[in-house]
């Protein structure tokens, strides 16, 4: 058991966690933030992507105990009074159907736009497709997900 102090979606949290607790279980079961999903057990589907210290990580492959002092943002925490442009873009462009992969897509989408903007690189459709290697969607054929991220990138 470890005591961790972390910031989740802007709020300080101090909790005891088992040493083998994964971040995704900590979020879903301890904090009841169930927007972060689990869609596989081999770290490939990306339904669990959250941001740790501003970077996208797979919360199913991260130990909660290793995050003492970290800042975690989940899909529940990206809207700031109004929806994040990435969230709006997914609605505007029909970037989701069943919605299960969507939180991970949104978190990966925000992360990639932030990185490309920071580097001054152009986030082309091909680049988006490459960046989505770790996010699997079974519903949309990715067409409208790529469009959503392109749209959001222009507005972020």
């Amino acid at each position, binding site marked *: 058991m470890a005591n961790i102090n972390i910031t989740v979606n802007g709020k300080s949290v101090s909790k005891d966690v088992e040493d*083998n607790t994964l971040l995704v279980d900590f979020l879903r079961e301890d904090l009841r933030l169930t927007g972060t999903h689990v869609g596989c057990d081999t*770290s490939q589907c*990306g339904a669990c*992507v959250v941001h740790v210290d501003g970077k996208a990580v*797979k919360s199913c492959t*991260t130990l909660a105990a290793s995050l*003492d002092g970290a800042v975690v943002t989940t899909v529940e925490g990206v809207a700031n009074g109004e929806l994040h442009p990435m969230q709006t873009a997914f609605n505007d462009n029909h970037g989701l159907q069943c919605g299960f992969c969507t939180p991970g897509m949104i978190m990966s989408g925000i992360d990639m736009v932030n990185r490309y903007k920071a580097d001054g690189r152009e986030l082309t459709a091909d680049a988006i497709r490459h960046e989505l290697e770790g996010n699997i969607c079974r519903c949309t054929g990715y067409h409208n997900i790529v469009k959503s991220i392109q749209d959001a990138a222009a507005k972020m």
Partner: protein
Amino acid sequence: MYSTKYHNPASIDAATAALSSGEEAKVLAGGQTLLPTMKQHLAEPSDLVDIRGIAGMADISANGATLTIGAAATHASVADNADVQSLCPALAGLAAHIGDPAVRHMGTIGGSMANNDPAADYPAAALAMNATIVTNSREIAADDFFDGLFATNLEDGEIITAIRFETGAKCGYAKFPNPASRYAMVGVFVAQTGGGVRVAVTGAGDDGVFRHAGLEAALSADWSEGAVAGVDISPGGLLSDFHGDSAYRANLIGVMAKRAVAAS
């Protein structure tokens, strides 16, 4: 996941102490392979010793043509590092294509080297460039480091602290990913080093990463895509599975070698 004890040492000494404290203690360097293995109950370490909190462990530095990459440097940090990009763009490009962005934010070079997955990318670079694996107790040449599938010459309690690459001449890496896992089905790293041309192949060998003598001879004589075409690449000793049998992998070694030279 079975229960385990998590350690977060601030120093190498504390880390080695923690490693020796448990019966089946393992180093946690990023966990992108280890944690999924644990989730599937295929590994049951008694202790996890996280080395990411040790000062300097994630540093990347350049000294002339020598690149030293801390064991806890993530794939993303290697890919984005200006020194890596300028001294060895092939290495930066390799790091930029390991796993996916989220995995690259957590996975580390030390973890990849110590795990020595036969389909991992870094072992190809390390072997082709004859990198030096620096541990808490010694320095090991890549030639002596890899020891078959998921095996290295690391001793119990030994911790990789950094990988040192001598850069300088041309390098290139080309990977053909497994369509499902996106790990390398064949990855070929070609390098002109002080010790001559070296070609390392990952993803394909049934004993892990290996050097290809035929390609090295051909590229020593003529560093060109055309030189690769004449090399006979045997399927002997290559992995076979439903994604790629040994004949197909042998073909891919030739194609990836050619593309690696083109990219160099």
